[in-house]
């Protein structure tokens, strides 16, 4: 991230036919216009839709409140859980939301380590989404304990009754994995926010704003030393977050895979769950960013290139998920185990076949449309497809969980799970929580990482005005690439590395 201030530099556009479109579009974009645009989102009057949406989200959040009140008053029996399906929408919702969070961490940590500079326009919002998604996920285990005021018992707290959580249970590992994930995600997000909060502080028009933002900006002055420490902290946090992308959903998959239940116990679950999590998370980031960029006119910062790249990642992870489905199915047959075979045939053709085929069409078939550039770059189509993927990934968890349970080893105890109204309202309510938090975030915090976006602009390249490239090498060899090379590589990014 460069702090070389070379404002008002006109950005030259140079589209490269072998695949490097500029990261920020527009002839007149400078450091200060980027600051104005992003800071303006929090400073100017919000768009008319914002209070309406916030009200709507708040209403839905109240549905969650009502559902949970009912749950605490009545007990978990108010959900439709019963023999043989003792685990259904609750754990489905938990896994769904935890999965959504993974895109944020992947974008902020893994894409950072891979020097993917296009991440800068979307990482802030995606990281925020991660935190809100984990909050929504946390609702389920927290309230599933029934007596929510005893929730702290999930932690191994020394007590005179010598009652401990079961250390051999992946549910306890979940507690550690998810709380670590939440902590590191918040830290990472906040560290990234500090320079931008200072920008907002310096632009603040009232004393109160100045003070509040000033406290959270931790005395940031943008000095060289600050940036140096910041870059180091950022790299370390990225390194720490990278294994978390894998570990959290791996442990979530252990919730099922350590059992001996056909359909749950299979060795590919850990990487398959991680791929699915990233897949669903990107779909949610897309759904949100397509709306945000339109409402706030951010098309020059969150460009079609960003959207296309995310579509490609969805195609890749969607295909990995498809690979995992195929492996599960093939090995279920190959194993020669009649229970495995039955479970998978029952999934596809049993009473829940409607859910199974919803899952396959949404998760495996719909991302395949992204093979075509026309579709990858068409906003209405990709918006619809991301919604399909969101739906499909909810169904994936539902299919895994419920279809494996509803017909167990004893046919006399077979059953069919039906959600109660409270099951449905709890899940709908978590969307209220998620969107309520996200709308507040968009309104009061810089939704785009201002400092990082500036770092990938051509003006951040110390050699942007030179007639020759940074080292006087290589550039002239390809004539027209020259300008492109300058803004798309090297020094601006090198500071991250």
């Amino acid at each position, binding site marked *: 991230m460069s702090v070389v201030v070379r404002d008002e530099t006109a950005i030259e556009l140079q589209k490269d036919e072998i695949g490097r479109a500029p990261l920020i579009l527009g002839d007149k974009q400078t450091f200060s216009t980027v600051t104005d645009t992003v800071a303006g989102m929090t400073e100017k009057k919000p768009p008319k839709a914002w209070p309406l949406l916030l009200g709507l989200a708040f209403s839905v959040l109240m549905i969650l409140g009502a559902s949970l009140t009912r749950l605490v008053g009545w007990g978990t029996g108010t959900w439709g859980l019963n023999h043989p399906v003792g685990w259904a929408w609750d754990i489905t919702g938990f896994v769904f939301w935890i999965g959504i969070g993974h895109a944020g961490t992947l974008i902020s940590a893994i894409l950072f380590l891979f020097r993917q500079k296009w991440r800068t326009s979307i990482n802030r919002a995606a990281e925020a989404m991660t935190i809100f998604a984990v909050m929504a996920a946390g609702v389920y285990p927290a309230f599933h304990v029934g007596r929510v005021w005893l929730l702290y018992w999930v932690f191994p707290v020394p007590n005179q009754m010598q009652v401990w959580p079961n250390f051999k249970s992946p549910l306890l590992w979940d507690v550690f994995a998810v709380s670590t994930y939440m902590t590191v995600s918040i830290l990472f997000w906040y560290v990234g926010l500090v320079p931008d909060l200072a920008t907002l502080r310096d632009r603040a028009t009232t004393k109160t704003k100045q003070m509040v933002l000033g406290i959270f900006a931790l005395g940031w002055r943008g000095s060289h030393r600050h940036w140096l420490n910041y870059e180091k902290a950022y790299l370390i946090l990225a390194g720490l977050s990278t294994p978390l992308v894998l570990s959290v959903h791996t442990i979530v998959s252990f919730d099922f895979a350590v059992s001996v239940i056909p359909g749950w116990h299979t060795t590919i679950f850990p990487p398959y769950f991680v791929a699915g999590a990233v897949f669903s998370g990107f779909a949610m980031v897309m759904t949100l960013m397509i709306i945000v960029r339109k409402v706030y006119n951010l098309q020059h910062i969150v460009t079609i290139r960003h959207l296309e790249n995310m579509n490609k990642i969805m195609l890749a992870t969607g295909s990995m998920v498809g690979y995992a489905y195929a492996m*599960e199915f093939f*090995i279920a047959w190959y194993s020669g185990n009649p229970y495995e075979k039955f479970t998978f045939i029952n999934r596809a053709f049993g009473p829940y076949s409607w859910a199974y085929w919803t899952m396959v069409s949404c998760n495996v078939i719909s991302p395949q449309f992204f093979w075509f550039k026309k579709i990858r770059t068409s906003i209405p189509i990709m918006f619809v497809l991301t919604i399909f993927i969101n739906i499909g990934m909810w169904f994936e968890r539902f299919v895994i969980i419920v279809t494996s349970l509803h017909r167990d080893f004893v046919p006399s105890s077979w059953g069919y799970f039906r959600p109660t109204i409270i099951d449905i309202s709890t899940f709908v309510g978590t969307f209220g929580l998620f969107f309520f938090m996200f709308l507040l975030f968009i309104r009061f915090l810089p939704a785009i990482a201002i400092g990082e976006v500036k770092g990938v602009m051509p003006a951040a390249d110390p050699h942007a005005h030179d007639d020759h490239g940074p080292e006087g*090498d*290589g550039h002239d060899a*390809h004539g027209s690439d020259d300008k492109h090379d300058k803004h798309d590589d090297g020094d601006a990014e090198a500071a991250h590395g």
Partner: protein
Amino acid sequence: MSSAATIEKDVQRLPEEQGKKLFGTAATIAALGLAGSAAAFFVDKQRFAHSWLVGFYFLTTIGLGALFFVLIQHLTRAGWSVAPRRHMEWVSGVLPFCALLFVPVAALAHDLYHHWMSAEAMKDPILKGKSGYLNVPFFYGRSVLYFVIWAGIAFWFAKQSADQDAAKKGDTRAFTGRMQGAAAPAILLFALSLTFAAFDWIMSLDPHWFSTIFGVYIFAGSVTSSLAVLAIININLQKQGLLKRVSTIEHRHDIGKLLFGFIVFWAYIGFSQFFLIWYANIPEETIFFKRRLVGEWQYVSYGLLLGHFVLPFLMLLSRHTKRSVTVLRAAAVIMLVMHYIDIYWLVMPSLDVNGAHFTWVDLVCLLGPVGVGMVVVAKRMQSSNLYPINDPRLPEAVKLQNL
């Protein structure tokens, strides 16, 4: 055009005497290995079959890992990896020759896969149920298909890349565009063929055993070992003073990062497979680890854990060691040895049921395929440029810096 001149400071071709020297060493290893293997065939056919499968698969997985590298660099339109990609094109060039090295495996398939190929197998209801997939003609047919896919992809990408070297200035970008376009479907074919080849050649050694993650496990080992080869190539070219700008310490650092990442990935996949099977403790699955965690095999298993993960993880964690010629090369050599042990550990318990014992047959059956692989790579090194001289991303690759 001063810049073009600076790039050309890098030697484009391998000096003749160095090429000859390398080829000589490779040919000697290959000759010794193949002669020894022939002798082993007559001395102990059963052991030869298994050991040869290990050696053959060792080379094949390295070739596959290299092919994956070529594909993924195109798929992600990476700019840093122009020169390493050429080196991996050389290594993926072994794949067509692996088809030849597969001939002994195919010829001795009944010794290797007698658990399901023999007539008695059909008395086992479970194996009978699998015979729609595990049957002799389909097995051979699939094997041919895998080699057609791998050799086809490897050949096409290497050819495009070589043609790009020879192309006129204005035409070079079209080659990159074509390769980027083809990389996506190629990687799908690659994933499925690698997986099913792993099922056919390795997993079916014990036809009752199954694991859905097995293909991913083989994939992780393939990529790790091929990155180790890449690190060695990078270091040696540097040491000879050949590539000063397009394949430098910065590129080595990146290769080190990838190697480190895939060492962890291999451990992650290996752990997932072990842990889920251990925890659920279902006899038909635990048999695989049961066999490998008793007697002498347990030491091989623990050695694999330490040598394939713990040791290289600690070695490559630091930025300094990833950039150090000595440490990175040591880690790369360890990874190649451990990759061999990994495959040995997968295959040989099917023969050495009562305990691991390494013999001269194992050694010559490793040297044969490795020698052939080295000959192929040496030939490719001699006949091609040391880096893609007309790649449009070359300036980007030269500028790479890990600050």
